[in-house]
């Protein structure tokens, strides 16, 4: 059974990663690979859409921590949107909202990326 999935949506100067299911120590490498691939392609403007994520542990949070420094050093960023209150609480407990920009809605997040207009999913 597939319990975690990353769906990639490429925009003009931005890629949205929709993460779906459970993000724990078992599934974290899948997300790690997806972000590493973007870095390899020099795509450093990344929006992570949490709308369909139902669970996260510190192993999942660690993935973002592992990349953020490098991405910001290349003038990019990882921003986040559409977290359920349950997921946001875990971020909040660890003080992550001071490190990452987290938006309620995907549209709000998209508007903060430079020169972007086409990475929105049509759901």
């Amino acid at each position, binding site marked *: 059974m597939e319990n975690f999935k990353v769906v990639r949506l490429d925009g003009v100067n931005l890629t949205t990663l929709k993460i779906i299911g459970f993000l*724990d*120590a078992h599934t974290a490498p899948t997300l790690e690979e997806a972000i590493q691939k973007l870095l390899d392609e020099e795509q450093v403007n990344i929006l992570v859409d949490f709308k369909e994520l139902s*669970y996260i542990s510190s192993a999942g949070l660690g993935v973002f*921590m592992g990349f*953020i420094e490098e991405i910001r050093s290349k003038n990019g960023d990882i921003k986040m949107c559409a977290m359920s209150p349950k997921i946001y*609480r*875990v971020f909040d407990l660890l003080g992550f909202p001071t*490190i990452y920009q987290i938006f309620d809605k995907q549209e709000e997040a998209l508007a903060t990326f430079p020169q972007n207009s086409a990475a929105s999913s049509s759901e």
Partner: protein
Amino acid sequence: MPKAKIEYKLRIPSQTENLEIIRFFVGKVAEKVGFAEDDVGKIELAVDEACTNVMKHAYTETVKDKTLDVAILIDYQKLTLVVTDHGKGFNPDKIRQPDMKEYLAELRVGGLGIFLMRTLMDEVDYDIKPGVRNQVRMVKYLINRKNSKIVN
């Protein structure tokens, strides 16, 4: 919440693919004994963090029987989670609470599991006997009971 003590046990291979099953097992028991949804989520995350630590660090390659035990003890007012492994153990005195300021400044990876366990649960302690058995014991008190009623 039952008045008599009840114990639930799960013995499972120490592999990350089993985290989902462990969370489901613990979550269902917590739900059934009356913890509110919020607390069920905290208990699931705490057991995940404890078991992830075992799966990542407890056993060396050469150990054949890599299993871990998750026990849940229910009594009148609390749920006690005990995670046991038979691996190499560690020195709990050397685990320090990460300084969040320092952590955020350095953007360090990892080491958050134990911090989370202490934040999510009411009590956390360790009993380490390297190579024999290592245990982490965590307690959550049943305060915010789901569907509770105040009776005058």
